[in-house]
């Protein structure tokens, strides 16, 4: 019996180990090694930290790096602010069929690819697009308005793309809050705001944190939305990685950028968990 259980355990573990090893650990070790070398001449490499030095001294790289971080945090915050009331409505106020329908409505945009969804925003926001025409028709603008290629358009795209990943954990945690606990909050003299602050938000905290982590990572690693909706100033860090690898064939610098992004997301997620006093185990378990 014991040997059987052992074989079963090994069989179950193998795909996981293969997946982790082949797709995550080995490529990352290779990336790390690539990022730590410098090209001296054709086919000759030397170990050095020159790539990181370049990345940290060149103002464009550094500026893009911080901008990407700040914009991702901002996108996460906006997503949370929009998703929370919607999730509360779906989880606590909508009943029966309406609840299911609303939840499916959140899911439906994800039936088409991210590319198509982003094109959808372009159709709406471009100079000859629907919103522009509507504004002219209503007399609010006397010439076509270009709403694409700026930070606001990019932010709209980022929030839209990540909304579902915030909604799911929020709806799940809010649903697990017993209605009578909220009623007890009112019964004992609480107003709407204090019930929200002392009862609903603390209860939803695991969902808020895990939603924020997912949305933050998705925004940070997003390539399509900033490229398509963002303007010339809205350079995203992933675009720079792409440029180094594909356009410039400078794998060394690209790998260094990749590692900087990994460290950045790890530090911010760690900071987020510290700030809310949670462990990764609690949040993901």
């Amino acid at each position, binding site marked *: 019996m014991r040997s059987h259980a052992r074989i079963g355990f090994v069989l179950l573990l193998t795909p996981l180990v293969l997946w982790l090893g082949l797709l995550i650990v080995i490529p990352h070790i290779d990336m790390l090694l690539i990022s730590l070398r410098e090209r001296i001449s054709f086919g000759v490499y030397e170990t050095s930290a020159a790539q990181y030095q370049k990345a940290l001294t060149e103002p464009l790289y550094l500026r893009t790096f911080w901008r990407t971080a700040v914009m991702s945090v901002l996108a996460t915050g906006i997503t949370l602010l929009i998703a929370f009331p919607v999730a509360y409505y779906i989880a606590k106020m909508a009943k029966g069929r309406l609840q299911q329908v609303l939840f499916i409505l959140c899911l439906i945009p994800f039936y088409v690819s991210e590319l198509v969804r982003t094109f959808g925003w372009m159709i709406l926001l471009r100079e000859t697009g629907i919103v522009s025409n509507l504004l002219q028709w209503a007399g609010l603008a006397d010439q076509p308005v270009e709403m694409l290629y700026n930070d606001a358009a990019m932010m709209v795209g980022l929030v839209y793309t990540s909304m579902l990943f915030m909604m799911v954990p929020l709806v799940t945690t809010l649903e697990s809050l017993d209605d009578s606990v909220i009623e*007890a909050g009112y019964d004992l003299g609480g107003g709407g705001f204090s019930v929200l602050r002392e009862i609903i938000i603390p209860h939803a905290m695991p969902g808020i944190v895990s939603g924020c982590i997912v949305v933050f990572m998705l925004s940070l690693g997003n390539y399509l939305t900033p490229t398509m909706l963002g303007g010339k100033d809205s350079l995203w860090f992933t675009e720079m990685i792409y440029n180094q690898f594909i356009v410039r064939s400078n794998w060394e610098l690209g790998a260094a950028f990749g590692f900087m992004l990994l460290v950045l997301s790890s530090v911010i997620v760690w900071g987020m968990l510290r700030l809310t006093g949670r462990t990764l185990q609690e949040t993901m378990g």
Partner: protein
Amino acid sequence: MTPDLECADLTKQFGETTAVDNVSFTVPPGSFFSILGPSGCGKTTIMRMIAGFLDPTSGDICIKGKSVLDTPPNKRPVNMVFQHLALFPMMTIAENIGYGLRRQKIPKDQISRKVDEALDRIGLPGIGGRKVDELSGGQKQRVAIARCMVLEPDVLLLDEPLGALDLKLREHMKIELKALQAAFDTTFVYITHDQSEALVMSDQISVMNAGRFEQVGTGQDLYYRPDTPFVAGFIGDANRWKGRIERVEGAVLEMRTETGLAMRATASNDLSAGDMAEIFVRPETIRLAASADALADFDNQLQGTVTSILFNGAASRVLVQDSVGETLEVTLPQSGEFSGLHRGDTVHIGWGAAQAICFGGGT
């Protein structure tokens, strides 16, 4: 004296269905008032209207003589102990109890003093720092009451708070709740479907059925002098017979049951010979005997066979089948006299007319 709580012609309709139908009652200060009824009878609806979570379709609710219909739940001088207690799991015990006080903007040092006092009163001093899930069922119960009582409400509503506890603890908490009510000297309005909870704790009980109050009275009133067949059937158990009244002689009437038995019962004013009626006899009022001689004093006597013995400690019963084939429940005395009783034995049973309650209108 102004009653603490007064409901006048309270009605609540949900669409076409009437959950609460024209209910009026008053609860004097400091008393323990229970609303007893089967599930779905509308008792929780009444409680939610008093707490302010539902608006009545018509009627009025007054607390200490003032109508509270326009007062939102968080401003009403009533607090509620919820069915599953609804303690705040994200807070410690002290934060739970202090929640309402914090809402009243009371200074911190006063809050912690009041919380400590409340914990002392419920017999759980020093547990303020613990988490809700570290407490046992009975302790949570007491904390839920303390959380309301620190606010010194005029009326405390309790919605089947003992339902989630196991039997032994429930028996214990019945006594404790009654003691807490006396200690806090506050009006309790208690909702339950468990007659024993209501009978043990209450000063006044109202029996509710299908949105209406059937009878309001003390436990003794309801048990010994039920007003309606529903109350007679709901409080305690009863053997029932339907039939036609043959004679009324002063305080005693005689009825012929549908199965042909003649039976004597207490008469009530509105019954006369020829009426259809229903007789209720409680299993514990029926006397069991080995021979007919021992039952000479009783108005009603039957002979039967034991078909089953339902052993349940002090509440043991025997099922006796009489000569016409009906099965009666009879309480089995635990004096040892019938310890040798077996299935198939022939026994004699009897009961007095005074213990048989008769209602008209049985069809």
